């Protein structure tokens, strides 16, 4: 963590409770601009809860309480004055299960811009094309923009979801196991895409796949039982971890 790259997301003593159950304890971490941060850890360790806390998706769940701070670009996102809708435009999210709307490919990508008030046909066309190109999907779907998005393959759907995210011009992309339901080829495409996207975006990715974390990320955070066990450069985590738990996990000894 000796890097001097500027800090995009930073949390301090962040706790999260589902009702009476504490899901995250005292998470303190800094994530860097234009880098990929991977969150790893066994199931139920709080990675996804943490990820969803970063764009306040947890607000949708009843009985969630938080303590501590999460700041993005120096602004506490849990502050009273923060507009959640605005926050979510800045912090896009790609879900584990690809979840395109039951609309055409075009309408899926245009949805974000439309809800933000862009009606102009030419602008929408441009946004859709550029988003799909950024998500490396344009060549595959350019002839079927009017077809239902549900007709695409799993990998294409997931890239469509990424394109849909990009269309609202976020700074940060949160990815919750984006490749867990995909075959190796689609996974490779998504990973290439992540590598491309980090030039323009700050990416936080949850993954169960150790190799994937090692391949795509610059920093890795290891969560266990709601706590952040270790956070460091990915090479360090995978080659020379400080904590024994981390070593056992990344070498596949437990979890």
């Amino acid at each position, binding site marked *: 963590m000796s890097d001097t790259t500027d800090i995009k997301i930073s949390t301090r003593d962040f706790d999260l409770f589902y009702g009476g159950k504490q899901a995250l304890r005292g998470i303190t971490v800094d994530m860097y601009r234009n880098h990929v941060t991977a969150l790893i850890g066994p199931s139920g360790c709080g990675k996804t809860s943490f990820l969803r806390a970063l764009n306040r*998706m947890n607000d*949708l769940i009843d009985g969630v309480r938080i303590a501590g701070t999460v700041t993005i670009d120096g602004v506490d996102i849990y502050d009273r004055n923060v507009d959640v809708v605005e926050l979510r*435009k800045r912090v896009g999210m790609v879900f584990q299960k690809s979840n395109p709307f*039951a*609309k055409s490919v075009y309408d899926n990508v245009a*949805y974000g811009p439309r809800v933000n008030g862009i009606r102009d046909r030419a602008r929408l066309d441009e946004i859709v094309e550029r988003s799909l190109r950024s998500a490396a999907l344009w060549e595959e779907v350019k002839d079927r923009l009017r077809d239902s998005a*549900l007709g695409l393959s799993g990998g294409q759907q997931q890239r469509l979801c990424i394109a849909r995210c990009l269309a609202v011009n976020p700074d940060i992309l949160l990815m919750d196991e984006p490749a867990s339901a995909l075959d190796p080829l689609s996974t490779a495409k998504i990973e290439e895409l992540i590598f491309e996207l980090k030039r323009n975006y700050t990416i936080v990715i949850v993954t169960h796949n150790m190799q994937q974390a090692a391949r795509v990320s610059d920093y890795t955070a290891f969560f266990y039982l709601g706590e952040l066990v270790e956070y460091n450069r990915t090479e360090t985590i995978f080659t020379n971890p400080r904590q024994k738990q981390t070593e056992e996990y990344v070498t596949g000894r437990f979890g």
Partner: protein
Amino acid sequence: MWIREEWEGQTCGGETMSEWQTHEAGERIVPRPYAERFALPDERTGNGWPSPNRFLRHRPLAGKKRFDFGEFAAEYVIRGIALLSICAIFGIFYYVFQESRWAFRGGGESVQETAGAGSRGNENAQAASGAGQEEEIRPQTYGLPETAGESAAETGASGVSREADAIEEGRRTSLHSETSGNDEPVTLERLLLPNDIIDNEPRYVWQPISVVPKYSFVPLFVGALKVTLVGISIAAPVAILAALFMTTFAPRWLREIMKPAIEILAGFPSVVIGFFCLITVASVIQEITGATYRLNALVGGIGMSIAVIPIIFTVVEDSLSTVPRHMREASIALGASRWQTAWRVVLPAAAPGVFAAVILGIGRAFGETMIALMATGNAAQVSWNILESVRTMSATIGAEMAEVEFHSVHYGVLFLIGTVLFVVTFSLNAFAEFVVRKRLIKRFQGR
């Protein structure tokens, strides 16, 4: 590493495994082979490991099949009841349908004897002969008789010009004595075309027990349509918005109170709703609109909407809450507000269900009897003013069936109304199910 070894143990099988064990036994702890750890019942695998369940004995695969009389009986009883209920429904339809034949045949004992075949020709002949015998002419008798020109009858365009002819012919053929006059068989023409002239204008009149009975379906149909339209145009938006609110915005405690409350309303006796409309709503509406008639289509429509809202609400709520959560989340994560999400993602995804709910509501409102009977004023007239009294088809049956002469024309006509009600509801539902809903599903769910 552990995982890898177990995997190899499985793929290599016992033989290879043991070789491998001897090969490296000194260096590592080797896990038991896969087949041993998940031992199948011993008589099948013969691997010597005890089965976890020694009580279950497998019977030969190709042996005699087990027969359980309880299962067999239950299956056939259920199947029988299902078939029986379907038969009962068709039986009712058939009964209503065949009772309406009296409308075309005419009642009276004499007719019953002669009109065995019940064909149109017989009726005509009979009507004509009846007219020949009776010379009595009464004033104000403008009833349209049946005419021979069946093809011309269907067009109905030349209404007024044909009127004169019709009246002429009416004088000749359709005038009967008191007794048989009431039982003159009807034709489609008389049910659907103008059957009276008042102030030189052709009118549709429902006067089933006047000296010359007039059975025009038009005012009844218009009345039912008016009340249904008013009812559904109040109920559909209210119910859909309520369901949307309930699934998307309402906090959980409110949802837990409101949902059962509205659903209980669905079981509310319609008499009570009718009574409420008759006493309270009618006064309020008259106060507000200054309507001449206290009981009118608007009041009836409001009553209908009270009856229909819970039904639409329940179905819409169900279909909204089956919209996958991840779709909602995707929209929220794109910076859509809750309203935008509800309106642009959740509602379209649930569109087929919403549509089905509205159709269900229309069917219910169209057939609803008690509220119509109590709150609409029951005046059969053709007008599109919702502040005038109306008489609906179902209310007509409800009001007149108890006093009608058995197997008279009037009796048959009432059953005919029943048939029409059934056909309308049935075709509405069929249309909804097979045409529109499929298209909506294709459009909104991409299947």
